[in-house]
């Protein structure tokens, strides 16, 4: 398998096996479905990103009069809804997960290929409902849909947006189920649990959360709809409900959901840091186990979103302690990635630049999460830009860095082409710099007390907001550049060959792009993941 012959791209592969539009829209090939998702979520990312751009334009001046208050409220709500439910949640699992999970475990497809296609169309339907809400005047509840504002007071298209999220949730459940069964049942001979790439472990943990958590979101949104349509008192105290109940239900899903968003990114980083250090991942068992620990613990920390809602102070105490506990497995991962670089052979290819970015930004994102777990400090920072900065450090600094790292790492495998080395590095550096300029000032604004979701703000906050808006411009340019050179590479890129990075892993032993059935012969696995050379015994300690 070691022959590095660069074959002409004309060989039959999953991309050129069939050409009709129908062959794409009705495909049950996991790789083609991954491409459908990639195109779809990229469109949603651009839509969500343009809302973000509008938000930053408006906040460049304290009067915030570029948009009306009503428009601004719709902008940040749609930004949150589109980015969270239509980009971040599906991002890595539906694209790279779909593409790579079967190949990495030595299978020809996922366990239920038709269900996989159904999942895509359910997602698309949910997304279109949300877009319908946008086109018809938007929704102004924030992505959290807090009742009773959403159930009784808002005049916007709450139901359409919530219904879109509700539908998209089923896609998430089905995909999770498909992955769990695939990982259990379709592993190639010799691919034991202890030999699985950490990308697979991360997706296994993610899928568990998707299957167990998403139904609660569905229930919550259904109850919201019942109250809004039928005026049955569930959340609105005027008709006998309790608004706090909504928050318990919502965060019971939505806190685990942030781990749905970040865990696959962690899996990507494990793959990348290993490949570009030419080393097995330091502490494989601990990194794998920490993914599972996160999946379990993520379900019992939701109360930290509610410290100041009037939750009993003893409940606050318990949720605070548990929230610190969930930080430990994340810390374990960061330390292990860093240790993986020790005595490695490190190259600075573009995906590795995203690894550097991820480790740095996720560290800041994770540590600032501790501020919010600390009861008295949460009181000051809750509902302010500190929270906005924190979750953007995790979600954009962490997850999006991982997504772009994955895109740059597996692009040659998925398309068979190499992209521009120079431009991809320029973009990576711009994104890193622009990101920090955008979101670091928001930590300072947050502790000063600037509330989130304000279309206008006191003038003394302007300087930091202008810095943030300037950073967003750089960030925006950083996002546009990859679109250009990646599309360009499709036609003009150098053929990539099987394994341009010299990476271990089954996906690098097959053609780029892979054939429709991935493997002519199902491989037999005889070694652990990340076999970059004989391992020594434990030597540090």
């Amino acid at each position, binding site marked *: 398998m070691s022959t590095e012959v660069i074959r002409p791209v004309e060989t039959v592969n999953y991309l050129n096996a069939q050409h009709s539009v129908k062959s794409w829209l009705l495909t049950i090939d996991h790789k083609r479905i991954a491409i459908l998702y990639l195109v779809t979520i990229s469109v949603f990312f651009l839509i969500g990103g343009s809302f973000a751009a509008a938000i930053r334009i408006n906040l460049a001046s304290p009067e915030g009069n570029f948009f009306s208050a009503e428009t601004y409220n719709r902008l940040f709500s749609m930004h949150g809804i589109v980015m969270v439910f239509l980009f971040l949640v599906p991002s890595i699992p539906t694209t790279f997960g779909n593409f790579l999970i079967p190949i990495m475990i030595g299978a020809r497809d996922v366990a239920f290929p038709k269900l996989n296609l159904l999942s895509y169309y359910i997602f698309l339907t949910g997304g279109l409902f949300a877009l319908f809400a946008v086109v018809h005047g938007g929704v102004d509840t924030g992505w959290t849909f807090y009742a009773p504002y959403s159930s*009784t007071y808002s005049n916007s298209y709450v139901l359409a947006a919530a219904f879109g999220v509700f539908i998209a949730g089923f896609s998430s459940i089905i995909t999770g189920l498909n992955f769990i069964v695939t990982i259990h049942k379709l592993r190639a001979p010799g691919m034991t649990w202890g030999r699985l790439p950490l990308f697979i472990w991360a997706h296994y943990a993610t899928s568990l959360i998707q299957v167990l958590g998403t139904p609660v979101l569905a229930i919550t949104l259904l109850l919201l709809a019942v109250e809004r349509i039928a005026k049955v008192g569930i959340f609105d105290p005027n008709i006998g409900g309790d608004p706090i109940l909504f928050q318990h239900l919502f965060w019971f899903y939505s806190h685990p959901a942030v781990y749905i968003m970040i865990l696959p990114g962690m899996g990507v980083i494990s793959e990348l840091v290993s490949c570009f250090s030419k080393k097995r991942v330091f502490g*494989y068992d*601990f990194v794998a186990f920490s993914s599972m620990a996160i999946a379990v613990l993520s379900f019992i920390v939701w109360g930290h979103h509610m410290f100041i*809602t*009037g939750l009993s102070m003893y409940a606050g*105490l318990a949720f605070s302690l548990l929230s610190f506990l969930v930080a430990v497995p994340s810390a374990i991962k960061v330390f292990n990635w860093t240790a993986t670089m020790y005595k490695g052979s490190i190259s600075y290819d573009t995906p590795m630049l995203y690894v550097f970015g991820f480790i740095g930004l996720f560290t800041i994102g994770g540590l600032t999460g501790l501020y919010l777990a600390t*009861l008295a400090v949460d009181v*000051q920072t809750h509902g302010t830009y500190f929270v906005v900065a924190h979750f953007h450090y995790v979600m954009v600094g962490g997850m999006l860095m991982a997504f772009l790292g994955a895109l740059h790492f597996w692009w040659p495998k998925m398309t068979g082409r190499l992209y521009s080395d120079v431009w991809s590095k320029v973009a990576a550096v711009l994104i890193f710099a622009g990101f920090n300029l955008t979101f670091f000032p928001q930590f300072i604004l947050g502790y*000063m007390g600037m509330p989130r979701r304000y279309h206008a703000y006191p003038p003394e906050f302007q300087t930091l907001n202008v810095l943030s808006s300037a950073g967003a411009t750089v960030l925006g340019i950083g996002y546009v550049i990859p679109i250009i050179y990646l599309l360009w590479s499709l036609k003009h890129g150098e053929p990539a060959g099987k394994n341009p990075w010299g990476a271990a892993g089954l996906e690098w032993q097959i053609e780029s792009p892979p054939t429709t059935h991935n493997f002519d012969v199902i491989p037999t696995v005889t070694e652990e993941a990340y076999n970059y050379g004989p391992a020594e015994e*434990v030597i540090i300690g």
Partner: protein
Amino acid sequence: MFTSFPIANIPLFPPVASAQAPEVDALYFFLNVVTAIMTLSIFAAVIYFAFKYKRRPGVEPVQIHGSTKLELTWSIVPFLIMLVMFGWGAKIFFAEAQPPKNAVEIFVTGKQWMWKFQYGNGGREIDELHVEVGQPVKLTMSSEDVIHSLSIPAFRVKHDVVPGHYDALWFTPTKAGHYHLFCTEYCGAQHAHMGGWVDVLDKPDFEKWEAGSEIQGTLAEKGLTEFEQLGCATCHLMNQQGRGPNLTNLYGKRIYLSNGSTVIADDAYIRESILDPNAKIVASFQPNIMPVFDGQISEEGVNEVIAYIKSLSQSVPPSQEGAHQWQIVLAPPNTLKSGAAVKSTAVVPTASGPPASAARAAPAGTKPGSVTPATTPAPAQKGTQQ
């Protein structure tokens, strides 16, 4: 000490204007130091490794499996540091959850998109809160519509204001000044404009402000007017003959309910009993006698009536005292003995006279052997004390 960090006149830190603020700030700086050390260590390690182990021809990487010792170290040590954050944060949070006994109570009503403040002396303000340096203040908050959240960054306090609930926060202002007050829970179109100012005044200025504000009767007096206008006095007689429970000395006490359970007669219970009287019926009284006042009385009206009912108690047990210390006054009702003096004092019109007189006069001499009103004034009086 940490008032501001002006760099070219850009404020980078909120004003420090309450007793709690320096405590929260100290913890915040501790978190900043830990974060800085951790972040710089990780950055330094990543950058150092990236240069030191840069890929060179002929240099092979060293494959290392891992190290259980190291794994345990970097799991346990950070967790121990986190336990410090946890304990420290919890300590301040618990103190913030328990207003001191001498706190002045101010009622706050949030609605789209304004904050309404009602002082004990009967004064009212919108989007403007006046408080005195050194005087602990407890805000008792309710919402007329959606969830709001009251935030005063200079005091490091914030609490959601949830419709259907009473929420509270407290602070002791330490520095005179003009500070932002924000709504920090998204509440609709004009959310960004649902804010105002907290004016912290030194004692002389505060007294001047109080003297200058146009006040017609204390909050309790307004409550009495409301009480009479709504016809409450018809049934809630100050003896045992009424169709409703006697409200004298009720506030803060544990009372028996008709279903056998008990409840503390606090703000939330009284509010519920006004808006939805049948929710919890006092033992030996009949349901469906009292009209439902939901929609008939404003949140401010409820606050006034509660202030009046409070003024009928000689001593208001502070909420942080254990429930076991509260007397059981209502029910079994036939065991309750009330003084005949109660009725005569309570029906005396109290619209005139010094602001606090009504609050003091109403319960005077009601219960022999209990603490005298002068030493433990009802909250309604406190706004006018100094």
